[in-house]
C-alpha cells in the first residue's frame, strides 16, 4: 500500500472536502465570516461532480433552499456563523418537523449580535440546542481538529440521512481557520449512509410512518410518490392532524428516534479517566488545550482525566453521570460563560462539584490556564 502524502489543510476546507466525500450535491449559503471558505470551495467543486451551488439572498432563504433540495433526493448543506444561525433557526425547525435531512455548519464567532466576526467563541451551544422554537430534537457535533472536521462532517451527513433530521456541525473560528497537516482517508474506506427509500408502490406509501427504529422511509420529489410535506403537525400521511393525541405522538416520536438510537449518535473520547480523581470536560478548541494541560498535570503526578464529547447534542448524560461518581470535581473550560456547564451540573448532580473556566474575550483558553485551574481546585 502506497503511503499517502500529508497535505496542509484549513478547517473550513476540511469541512467542504468532508461534505464532498459524504456525497453532498447541493449547497445554498450566504457570505459570512468566518465560514465563507466553505461556500467558496463548494461553489468551485460542486459543479465538477454534477452538484449545484447557489448563493441565496439571505440565510433564511439558504436554509429553505437546502430543505427544498433535500426533498428532491440531494444531500444538502449550508454553512454560516452565529448571526446567520439566528436566521436559519426558522427553517431549521421546519427541517426537524418535516424530517428533512440536511447539515448546517456554524463556525462560531463572538456574539451576541454582530460581535466579533474573526474571533472564536462557543457562544452558540445553547442556540444549537434551542435556537428554533418548539420542542424539537437536534444533533450537534463539535470536532477539535482539521482532520476530525473532515471525519465529523461525513458523520454529520450520515446521521442526518440515517435519522431524517437536521444535524448542526459546531466549529469555531479557530477550528475553521486553522491549518494542519492531514492525511485524508481513501474514499473507498469511508462509510456512507443514505436515507432509506420506500420500496412500496405510491398508493401504499405513508411518508411519515416510522419503521421500528422510529425513522420513516423518504421518497424524493419527482419519483411518482406525490406526497405532501408541511410544517404543521401531521400524521403518517403527511397531512395536518392537530388532534392532541397525534400532536403528542409526533413530538415524542421525533425525540424518540434520536434517544432510542443514541448509541449510534454519541461520540465521546476519554483520556486518563481510569484512575482519575479529577476530570476536565471540554469540547472544540478548548479540548485541545485541556488535553495538553491534563498531560502536563499527569507528569506532575496529578490524577486528572479528560472527557471530550464530539457529540454535544444529544448530551452525553451517562458519561457525565458515570464520571461524577468517580471524580470529586469536574472542570468545564468553555469559550462562553458556562453554556454546557449547566448540562454537566444537571447530570453530575451532587456527586461531583462542577467548576467553570470561561473566556468570552475572543481568545483561546491556554493549556496553562487549565493547568492552573486543575491545581487551584485540587
Amino acid at each position, binding site marked *: 500500500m502506497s503511503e499517502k502524502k500529508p497535505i496542509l489543510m484549513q478547517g473550513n476546507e476540511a469541512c467542504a472536502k468532508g461534505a464532498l466525500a459524504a456525497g453532498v*450535491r*447541493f449547497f*445554498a449559503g450566504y457570505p459570512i465570516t468566518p465560514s465563507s471558505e466553505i461556500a467558496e470551495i463548494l461553489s468551485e467543486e460542486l*459543479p*465538477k461532480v*454534477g452538484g*449545484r451551488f*447557489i448563493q*441565496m*439572498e*439571505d440565510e*433564511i*432563504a*439558504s436554509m*429553505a*433552499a*437546502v*430543505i*427544498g*433540495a*433535500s*426533498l*428532491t*433526493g*440531494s444531500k*444538502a448543506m449550508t454553512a454560516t456563523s452565529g448571526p446567520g444561525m439566528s436566521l436559519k433557526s*426558522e*427553517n431549521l425547525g*421546519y427541517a426537524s418537523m418535516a424530517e428533512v435531512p440536511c447539515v448546517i455548519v456554524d463556525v462560531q464567532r463572538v456574539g451576541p449580535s454582530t460581535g466579533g466576526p474573526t474571533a472564536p467563541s462557543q457562544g452558540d451551544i445553547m442556540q444549537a440546542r434551542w435556537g428554533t422554537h418548539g420542542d424539537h430534537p437536534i444533533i450537534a457535533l463539535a470536532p477539535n481538529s482539521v482532520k476530525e472536521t473532515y471525519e465529523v462532517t461525513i458523520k454529520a451527513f450520515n446521521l442526518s440521512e440515517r435519522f431524517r433530521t437536521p444535524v448542526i456541525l459546531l466549529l469555531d473560528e479557530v477550528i475553521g481557520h486553522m491549518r494542519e497537516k492531514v492525511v485524508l482517508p481513501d474514499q473507498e474506506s469511508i462509510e456512507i449512509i443514505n436515507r432509506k427509500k420506500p420500496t412500496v408502490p405510491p398508493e401504499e406509501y405513508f411518508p411519515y410512518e416510522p419503521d421500528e427504529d422510529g425513522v420513516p422511509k423518504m421518497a424524493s*420529489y*419527482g*419519483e*411518482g*410518490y*406525490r*406526497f*405532501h*410535506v*408541511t*410544517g*404543521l403537525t401531521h400524521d403518517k400521511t403527511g*397531512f*395536518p392532524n392537530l388532534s392532541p393525541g397525534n400532536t403528542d405522538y409526533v413530538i415524542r416520536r421525533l425525540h424518540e428516534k434520536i434517544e432510542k438510537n443514541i448509541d449510534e449518535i454519541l461520540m465521546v473520547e476519554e483520556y486518563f479517566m481510569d484512575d482519575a480523581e479529577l476530570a476536565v470536560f471540554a469540547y472544540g478548541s478548548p479540548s485541545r488545550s485541556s488535553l495538553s494541560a491534563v498531560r502536563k498535570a499527569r507528569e506532575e503526578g496529578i490524577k486528572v482525566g479528560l472527557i471530550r464529547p464530539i457529540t454535544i447534542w444529544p448530551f452525553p448524560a451517562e458519561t457525565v453521570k458515570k464520571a461524577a461518581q468517580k471524580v470529586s470535581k469536574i472542570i468545564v473550560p468553555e469559550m462562553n460563560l458556562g453554556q454546557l456547564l449547566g448540562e454537566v451540573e444537571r447530570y453530575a448532580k451532587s456527586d461531583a462539584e462542577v467548576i467553570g473556566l470561561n473566556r468570552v474575550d475572543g481568545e483561546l483558553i491556554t493549556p496553562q490556564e487549565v493547568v492552573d485551574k486543575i491545581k487551584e481546585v485540587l
Partner: protein
Amino acid sequence: MQELLDKYFRKDKLPHIWCPGCGHGITLGAVVRAIDKVGLDPIKTTVVSGIGCSSRAPGYMKFDTLHTTHGRALAFATGVKHAKPELNVIVLTGDGDAAAIGGNHLIHAARRNIDITTVLFNNSIYGMTGGQYSPLTPTGKLATTAPYGNIDQAFDICKLAIAAGATYVARGTVYNTTQLIGLISKGIQNKGFSLIEVITHCPTVYGRRNKMGTAVDMMKWQKENTVNVKAAEKMTEEQLKGKILVGELYSDTRPEYTEQYTKIIERLQKEGQQ
C-alpha cells in the same frame, strides 16, 4: 370537471377550508386547468406554498406538494428547482406571504429568472389571521389592524416583478377565469420566472368590514374596475384613473438560471474528461 378532479385533486382532502364565497377555489381551479391545458406531467410537477389561506391550496392537489414557512415558498422552491431542474415548479402564494414577509425572495427569484411559475392570490388582506392589512391592501381600506383606515401605500407587485427581472408578468381576476387560465398557462410555458397576480376576493374578513357586499358583488367590482392592458392603450389617463390593468403585462426572454448552471456543469465535466 370530474375528470380534472380525478386527475389532479386529492379528493379525500376535500371539501377545502376556504370560507363560502372565497375566490381561492376559483383560482385553484384556474391553476389546475392551466396545468391540464399545458399538459404538465403530474409526476414531474412540484407545487410549493408558504403560509396563509392561499397556501393551503397545494394540500388538495395530487402532485408532490410542499407547504413551507411564511413567506419562504420561493426560497424552498428555488432549492427544489435548482437541485432537480427537470421538475416543473409552481408556487402558490398570497399577498401577505409574497409581498410582505417573502418580498425579498420574490425579488431575487425574479432577478435570477429561475423557471418557477408563481401564482399570487391577492385578496388584499391577511385572511387566515383574521383580517390584518397587507402590502397590497389599498390605502383607506379598513382592517383589524387599520381600524381608522389604512394609511400604507399598496404597491404594484407586477411592476416590482418586472423591475426585478421576471420574464413573464400578468394580472387576472377570478371574475374572468377564461383569461386567467390563459395567463397562468403562458406563465407555466415561459422558460423563466413568471408571476401571475390574481385579483381574488375575501368576502369574510375584507369585504364585510369594507362594506363591499357579497362575494358576487366583489366579483362585479373586479369586472368594473379592471381594464385589459390592450384596451387601455386606446384610453385616456382620465378614463384609466383608478382602474387596475389586467392581461399580459410583460413578456421577455432571458437566460434561465438552472439552464445556465447546467451549462457550467457540462463544461466542467467535459474538461474533466479531457
